[in-house]
């Protein structure tokens, strides 16, 4: 009962906000077109500037860093999946490779790696003599043990699919084998991996916490004692078991050998309950001295920024994610590229950002997000600029007329009511479409997207699993990722818009088969130009931007987020 009520209330609030946005955008539309006709690149009129301090200085040991998180699903790498679980797992364990905040892959336990010509066989040379927290030496067998522990059928791990390129994955995951046949650990200092699906980006995947090494003490995956107090090889170790719903204590591992030791004596992670109020509690905790680091509730970005930017305790960064509109690209009315571009150009992203988000988001003008320094093409989506006149013209050419019906669905409960309502009103106002706008549970929306008769647009977002632009292109736009060849069967993959372009597919395949990183990035850029620039297969809305505040009077090297949007615990030291 109360659930339906709150949904209704939120929808009502959304409509109210949408009308605000509408009035804002009618004011702005004039200035917008003026600037466009004047030519030249106009600066985005919305979005918070990026602020971070990545200068690393040397510190001295000491201090206890405190922060709040919500209860993770798991901190044992066999099932760690969301940012909170990965925060703990990533500092308890060190894998073969490590992803920098800028999305670069650098050596960790692996000193170096190489592959054969077609990237089907990989050799990782390991640093020798590094240790687990219990003193056991980290060898290639530790990695084989860890990987098999994730993939084994009995583990039923949510993250096992990350290993699906490796030879023997299907057998181990299906329960017909008890080892990963493609992983060879016969030399303790060398890990050899054979891939059934060759990829020149395999080394990037190994930075995921699922690929962590495991000591003998780990045993099978379902092992409550180890799950709550994992023994890893990372810069920090557990100080007592995970106290569920209360907290997790970490202390520095003094025999850490894979990289420089951490400075912090300890990390105190308080578990806050209630996803919706956690951010508020984090910020309250930072303000009253209980925490040293906090996320910011959206309605307090402005005041928090004013307070903490002045003391260099403010972080604002575009990261590896995007909000977009999924388009059913094979069904009318959106099967025509002109219709897709018309819809995109009829949306005033800046007005929505200012009206709904208080200016705290960045309008997306590409699909591969700004976190990827080299692959980022900020203007690849020329149809992401607001241009109602051009939109009308394109709509006319595509046969979208006054009263053409367009389905637009979003999921309730994720805070998407307001901005989607604004999009609906803009489409009605600027193109005269009849928008069938509906909010449903996420799982229902997903099912609707999968159906062969799915039409129109859906709100969706996407985040990176691995630091490669391919992770934003292949799963969402490739023919293979539709998950079926049959137009009358449900699309079970992530490409539920069913966009398919052989030219794009070839470029992405070529990229994963290219060893040289710069060349590969270039191929991805070309692929994005086709899927977004030419075909606009999905409509980019906002780039993921994250904000943090921290206690800069007390802590140094804390002015940026790691790849998982967490504090860089291995570098922070007390001033």
């Amino acid at each position, binding site marked *: 009962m109360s659930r339906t009520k709150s949904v209704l209330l939120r929808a009502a609030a959304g409509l109210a906000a949408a009308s605000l946005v509408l009035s804002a955008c009618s004011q702005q539309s004039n200035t917008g077109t003026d600037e466009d006709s004047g030519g030249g690149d106009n600066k985005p009129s919305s979005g918070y500037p990026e602020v971070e301090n990545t200068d690393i200085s040397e510190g001295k040991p000491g201090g206890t860093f405190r922060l709040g998180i919500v209860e993770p699903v798991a901190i044992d790498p066999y099932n760690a999946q969301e940012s909170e679980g990965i925060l703990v797992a990533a500092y308890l364990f060190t894998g073969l490779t490590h992803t920098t905040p800028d999305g670069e892959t650098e050596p960790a336990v692996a000193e170096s790696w190489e592959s054969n010509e077609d990237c089907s066989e990989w050799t990782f040379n390991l640093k020798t003599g590094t240790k687990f927290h219990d003193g056991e030496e980290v060898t290639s067998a530790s990695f084989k043990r860890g990987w098999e522990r994730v993939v084994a059928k009995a583990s039923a791990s949510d993250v096992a*699919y990350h290993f699906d390129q490796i030879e023997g994955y299907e057998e181990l995951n299906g329960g017909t084998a008890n080892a990963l046949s493609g992983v060879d650990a016969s030399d303790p200092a060398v890990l050899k991996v054979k891939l059934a699906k060759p990829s020149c980006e395999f080394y990037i995947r190994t930075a995921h916490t699922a690929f962590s090494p495991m000591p003998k003490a780990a045993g099978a995956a*379902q092992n409550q004692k180890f799950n709550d107090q994992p023994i890893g090889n990372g810069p920090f170790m557990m100080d007592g078991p995970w106290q*569920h719903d209360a*907290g997790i204590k970490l202390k520095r591992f003094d025999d850490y050998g894979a990289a420089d030791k951490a400075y912090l004596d300890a990390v*105190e992670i*308080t578990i806050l309950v209630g996803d919706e109020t956690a951010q508020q509690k984090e910020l309250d905790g930072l303000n009253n001295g209980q925490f040293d680091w906090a996320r910011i509730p959206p309605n307090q970005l402005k005041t928090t920024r004013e307070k903490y930017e002045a003391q260099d305790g403010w972080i604002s960064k575009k990261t590896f994610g995007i909000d977009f509109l999924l388009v059913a690209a094979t069904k009318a009315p959106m099967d025509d590229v002109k219709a897709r571009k018309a819809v995109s150009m009829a949306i005033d992203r800046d007005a929505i950002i200012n009206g709904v988000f208080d200016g705290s988001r960045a309008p997306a003008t590409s699909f591969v997000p700004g976190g990827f320094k080299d692959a980022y093409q900020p203007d690849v989506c020329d149809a992401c600029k607001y241009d109602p006149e051009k939109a009308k013209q394109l709509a006319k050419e595509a046969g979208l007329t006054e009263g053409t019906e367009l389905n637009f669905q979003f999921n309730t409960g994720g805070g998407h009511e307001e901005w989607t309502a604004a999009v609906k009103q803009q489409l009605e106002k600027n193109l005269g479409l009849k928008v069938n706008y509906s909010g449903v549970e996420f799982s229902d929306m997903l099912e609707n997207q999968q159906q062969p008769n799915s039409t129109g647009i859906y709100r969706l977002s*996407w985040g990176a699993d691995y630091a490669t632009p391919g992770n934003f292109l292949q799963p969402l736009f490739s023919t293979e990722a539709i998950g079926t060849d049959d137009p009358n069967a449900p699309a079970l993959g*992530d490409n539920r818009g069913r966009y398919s372009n052989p030219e794009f597919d070839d470029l992405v395949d070529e990229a994963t088969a290219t060893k040289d990183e710069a060349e590969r990035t270039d191929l991805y850029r070309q692929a994005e130009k086709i899927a977004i620039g030419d075909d606009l297969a999905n409509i980019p809305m906002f780039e993921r931007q994250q904000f943090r505040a921290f206690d800069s009077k007390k802590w140094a090297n804390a002015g940026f987020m790691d790849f998982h949007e967490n504090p860089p615990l291995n570098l922070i030291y007390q001033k």
Partner: protein
Amino acid sequence: MGKFITRRLAHAVLVIVAATFLIYLGLFAIGDPFASSGEKTVPPEIQEALREKFGMDQPFFVQYLTYLQNMFTFDFGVDFEQRRDVADMLANAVPATARLALFAIAIEIIIGLTAGIIAAVSQYTFRDVLITVITTLGIGIPVFVVGIGLRAGLSGEWIFPAVPRSFTIEVPWYQEVILPAITLAIIDAAFIARLMRGSMLEVMRADYVRTARAKGLSERKVIGKHALRNSIIPVVTYTGVSLGVLLGGALITETIFEYQGVGYLLVRAISQQNAPVIVPIVVFAVLTFVALSTLVDILYAYLDPRIRLH
């Protein structure tokens, strides 16, 4: 008396079987807990492995009977989210909720009875009016207002632990329990006071009380021995029901104070659609409720000889 108890117990078993079946049907059989629910599709082989791990690849009745069978050995399986032993989670939460419930009941009985008796004995005096006004307010204020107010005003002050707690600061259980217990007790104490006042006034007009007075017994004996015993019956019923409700978990109050009891566990389990945690908690709530109302019936029989005779 023996027959009476047997019949009540038979009812209780029926209620439990019906409750588990309905709850199980609702939570496990409808909807697939392992279908994709995030931005990324869960690969089919992963979904299949999950279903098999949690025994959900079996036909519904096999699942249900296995579940029922395991339940009698206190094996509730592992939860969907963190895969912890549900029996362990309950073993931590149940004593916390029991402490809270007993504490709250003790407070409300002491305050409620005292206030009710004073009001009845001094009917229509200033004391009576004052108590009536206060209790009306007490009944009228929603529990979340009391809870949030107390939390905002007192958390971190004096002996009350801060909410949310910093987990490295150990707090003795009685400190932790005191604010949520007061929150729960305020409304019930007000209700008990009114109940007590009304029923006491009624009893004091009864013939046997007049007889007792006529016999020349002291006022103290008339009220303490004769009137009190009879007028307390509605309070016993109410307290029994109230205890039953509280033992099933005080959802709102426990959540406001982040008190690690059954109610809070249930709230979180519901938001995660974590059926293996929800089912035993609801069954436990039904069970305590049934047990307590049975107990109350038996207490009646003790307090009122007329019931005993039936």
